[in-house]
């Protein structure tokens, strides 16, 4: 897991620092695990063996990791895909915003954990219910950031473009969208992370596979090492998503990346 972060890191120092932190964490973990039985805190070795076992059975990556990954990604795409056009409408029409926002806030106030069982009853034990739960969790940060981003256009830049002869369409595509991108990507980052949580919560509520299902299943059999395997796999997925968004940011907004340096 540490290796993945390291390969993405830029600069030798960062790489060494990460390696050191990784070694220290594993060492402390190994030391602590000597005080507890395996069903409380399994040693790194025990977790690695459990992962290897699962891997050899062919289940870890091909079934469980992939299931959760697909659920989270599809959920994010669905949620963000629905949120973006709505955020445009809300940013454009304040009156609609006043009508819709209370509803959005009310829906958002319902914890996704409480909503998940209902989705499983409605849409079954399979992929669909998880995608919908993940979509619901990813929807709100993308919507909120979309509205905030599209409204954050500098009015002086807008006036400048008008003087230059820009029409509404040109102001939208050449000014409002690019200036919303940094905030929008913040929403994507949050939405993608939340969609993993949504997928896992969905699997808790009823599923036959996935990393969330593994945790749920392992709890029943006190297979703590398996819980750790699933958690580490989820961490890897989270890091992967983080890197994916960072890479997309660098590709879509080269000016923004330079700004940070």
């Amino acid at each position, binding site marked *: 897991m540490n290796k993945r972060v390291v390969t993405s890191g830029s600069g030798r120092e960062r790489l060494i620092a990460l390696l050191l932190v990784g070694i220290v964490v594993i060492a402390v973990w190994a030391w602590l695990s000597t005080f507890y039985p395996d069903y409380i805190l399994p040693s790194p070795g025990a977790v690695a063996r459990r992962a290897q076992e699962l891997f050899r059975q062919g289940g870890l990556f091909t079934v469980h990791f992939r299931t959760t990954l697909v659920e989270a990604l599809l959920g994010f795409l669905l949620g963000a895909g629905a949120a973006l056009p709505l955020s445009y409408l809300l940013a454009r029409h304040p009156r609609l915003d006043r009508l819709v926002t209370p509803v959005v806030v009310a829906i958002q106030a319902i914890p996704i954990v409480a909503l998940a069982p209902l989705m499983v009853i409605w849409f079954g034990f399979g992929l669909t219910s998880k995608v919908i739960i993940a979509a619901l969790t990813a929807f709100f940060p993308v919507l909120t950031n979309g509205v905030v981003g599209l409204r954050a256009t*500098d009015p*002086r*830049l807008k*006036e*400048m*473009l*008008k*003087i*230059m*002869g*820009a029409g509404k369409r*040109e102001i939208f595509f*050449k*000014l409002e969208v*690019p*200036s919303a*991108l940094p905030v929008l990507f913040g929403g994507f980052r949050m939405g993608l992370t939340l969609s993993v949580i949504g997928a896992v919560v969905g699997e808790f509520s009823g599923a036959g596979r996935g990393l969330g299902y593994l945790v749920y299943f392992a709890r029943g059999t006190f297979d703590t090492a398996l819980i750790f395997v699933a958690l580490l796999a989820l961490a890897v997925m989270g890091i992967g998503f983080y890197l994916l968004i960072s890479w997309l940011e660098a590709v879509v*907004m*080269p*000016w*923004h990346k*330079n*700004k940070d340096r």
Partner: protein
Amino acid sequence: MGTVIEVNDVTLAFTAHCAPELDGINLVVDEGEFLCLVGPSGCGKSTLLRLIAGVLTPDRGEIKVFGEKKPLNWARLSFVPQDSLLLPWRKVIDNVLLPLELNGRPGDRGEWKVKAQAALHLVNLHGVEDKYPHQLSGGMRQRVALARALVSKAEILLLDEPFAALDALTRSQLHLEIMGIRQQAPFTGLMVTHNIFEAVFLADRVVVMGEKPGRILGEIKIDLPYPRELKLMSTPEFAALVGAVQDLLAKGWCTGHE
């Protein structure tokens, strides 16, 4: 020389209960003239510029540019704002050609680039085409804004305190450059500033405004010969003109408190 900008009895109030932002403004700018509007901050001189640019409409009175009341496009009237207002996600060259892109047909990009390149040369910027605005100094950004205003060879340039945020040396440099540009590619200039020295140094005529309500107090003709050099600022003639502008400004303060 004909009249290019005509402001007739223009009044504008942002809110009903305050003194009007601008009250009964009359102003005429002739072709090829460089006119500076001087006044304290809040006297509405920037507002007057935005009215002429067509982004605001007066409550009363009328504004004619080239005899027309509707706003003109960038090819005839362009604008240099105080803090450059470049698009941060566009490289310098793409910022400069933006007015052409907004008014032209797609597919002419190569031609736009050539024009943008020429405008950048006019303001003495070389080798920064592919940089982003935040990689430039304030003075360079302001030069880019100037290049953007010059790119379509507009007949009128409106300048809204274009040098206010720059250090004194960079400012002097840009003063000389703007006079150089006027010789190479003549335009009619209307510049807002609260720097009296800058106004006297650059202008053919200085119009002094007072605040609350924004109104014109008077004007001073600047009969200093061209080309002007920086040492002109230490001559008695220059000092006398600065003094005359200051007298007009002071008159505004006295009448403002009656």
